[in-house]
């Protein structure tokens, strides 16, 4: 068996240089050694692959038309073998991806890993963040129930003040963006992100003497690979657990009349939705300020961060402004999200 495997390996190696590729991929030195803090990027890649697999399985049964989208999703949940689980995994996988993107970006920010010479990795990462949010937004409409329909309506209205009524064209376009354009963009940019990462090398820990860092420096394989695999398994199990605890249940089929249903976007846009309810953001200019100007400026600030913050200091405990800003943003997001949930009972 080993001889056959070796022959196949040698055959492929002779043609594409497998040994060199393997050495490049696996023998990447990690300054300061492997760490659990470095698993977020690998976990994101894993979640994306699982989203692609479950998404393809769902596409075997899903019909992207306003007449059949709801019925075909109901069919997946109730009739297709394990369809309910695959759909629920895909649903929670999208949330996991958003959470993981926040975790990954936070780790990079707190570790100061966006600083020179890693500015390009940070910039591509920001575009990937926007793509992940777009994935969630476009996928949410596809089941075509009241929740999906009104989340999209509210979401579009946040970005563009023109009221829309999602119809067949919206569904078709969202479907194409969700299953064709965004995956292609994400694959290309994730590849570029990894290429830049490998070119610049990992930033390593922000603390420790040169002697300590040198002593702990290790290759990517096996210890970091092991940690990545354990983290991916944990992420997989958490998504499965959520799929069991809260499986996808459709509401009534989408109609242009919300009826009893109070429209709101997906949970990861709730903080913005709640912020827009503040009086300061009322009126046309206020809505523009809250929905477009502030989030846009925030993204621009993040993009400019490596060029503004030129200090080589990476220790977060010696960067009080960075630590304070991160804490305020995170607490703000949590408080506004909880406020949006509490706000539901005042809507009747």
């Amino acid at each position, binding site marked *: 068996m080993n001889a056959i495997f070796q022959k196949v390996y040698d055959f492929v190696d002779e043609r594409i240089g497998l040994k060199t590729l393997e050495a490049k991929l696996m023998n990447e030195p990690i300054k300061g050694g492997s760490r659990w803090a470095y698993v977020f990027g690998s976990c994101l890649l894993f979640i994306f692959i699982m989203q692609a697999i479950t998404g393809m399985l769902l596409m075997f049964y899903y019909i992207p038309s306003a007449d059949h989208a709801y019925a075909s999703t109901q069919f997946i949940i109730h009739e297709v073998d394990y369809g309910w689980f695959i759909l629920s995994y895909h649903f929670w996988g999208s949330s996991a991806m958003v959470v993981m993107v926040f975790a990954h970006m936070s780790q990079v920010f707190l570790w100061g890993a966006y600083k020179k010479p890693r500015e390009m990795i940070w910039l591509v990462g920001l575009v990937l963040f926007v793509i992940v949010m777009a994935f969630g937004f476009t996928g949410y409409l596809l089941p075509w129930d009241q929740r999906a329909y009104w989340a999209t309506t509210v979401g579009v209205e946040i970005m563009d003040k023109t009221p829309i009524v999602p119809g067949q064209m919206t569904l078709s376009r969202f479907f194409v963006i969700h299953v064709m354009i965004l995956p292609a963009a994400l694959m290309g940019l994730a590849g570029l992100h990894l290429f830049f990462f490998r070119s610049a090398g990992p930033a390593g820990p922000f603390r420790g003497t040169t002697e300590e860092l040198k002593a*702990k420096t290790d290759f990517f394989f096996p210890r970091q690979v092991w940690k990545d695999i354990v983290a991916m398994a944990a992420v997989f199990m958490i998504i499965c657990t959520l799929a069991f605890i809260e499986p996808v249940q459709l509401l009534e089929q989408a109609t242009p009349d919300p009826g009893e249903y109070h429209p709101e976007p997906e949970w990861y846009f709730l903080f913005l939705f709640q912020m827009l309810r503040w009086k300061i953001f009322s009126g046309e200019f206020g809505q523009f300020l809250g929905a477009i100007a502030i989030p846009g400026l925030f993204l621009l600030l993040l993009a400019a961060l490596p060029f503004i913050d030129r200090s080589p200091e990476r220790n977060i405990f010696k960067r009080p402004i960075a630590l304070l800003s991160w804490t305020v943003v995170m607490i703000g997001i949590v408080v506004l999200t909880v406020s949006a949930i509490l706000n539901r009972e005042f809507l009747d």
Partner: protein
Amino acid sequence: MAHPVENLSSIKLAWAVAWSAFWTGFPFKLIVALLLLAGQVHPWEGAGLVTLLVVSIPIDIWAVGLTARTVFLERLSMEIRGPVGVSLWWQGAVLGALVLGGAYYAVGTTVAVGQKVAAAIIALIKKFYPALPIAEQITLELLLWTIPTAIVLLVFVLLWLHLFGWRVKRVVVASGQTSSASFVERVRQWDYARVPADPTLVLVSFAGVIVTLTVVFWVLLPVTTPTPHPDYPLQQVQKASKPVKPEELINKTEATLKKAEAVLAALEKEKSRETTKGKSK
């Protein structure tokens, strides 16, 4: 001369052990919880909860022992004689139960008082500014009672860490001995304690465990949804039945019968012709 461990902060030491131990044991507990869920047993109540708690005890003892050893080796250059997992676990559990009891009462009281105070402050603001919008009111009220609650909770967490750290230090003083290994050797030692040294063993064992668990998982997993929505169930599409027209049906049947009779007569005729031919031969 004071033992080197006394120079370390109890809270930092306890945090290093407890945080790592939590994440070390977490994936194993998750496997148990997931298999229970696949078998439609809730791990947060009844038999499921008991199973999870019982399984968690040996996992936690192992995780605390492992992480404590590596923390001592890394931060204090000390090796510990004998098993420390059981000793640290029961002390942590007793302290945890005591602190949790106190925290339950204190946090509950803080929430109740905080909400009352927040409501009073909001009422006062509304006196001067009656048009206070609901969205601002909710966020303000939330901040007013969650900030003191978070502080009280943090105090109890720090209290538990301080007490646990104090017990961890006692264990180190009682059974720790300074390691003679160099820094580089110690790095390898604690790294190998957490991650298997043999890469092939890592991959093969992991693949084996994953395959086994996957098979068990899919065997237990319900084929169709165990939780259909009570208000919006699957709408069974009924096939539209054609209206029955008796005259048309009789005519159609008669025509089919006539056709069949004609075919039968033709077949019989052919058969009798073949029989006559055979006799004449």
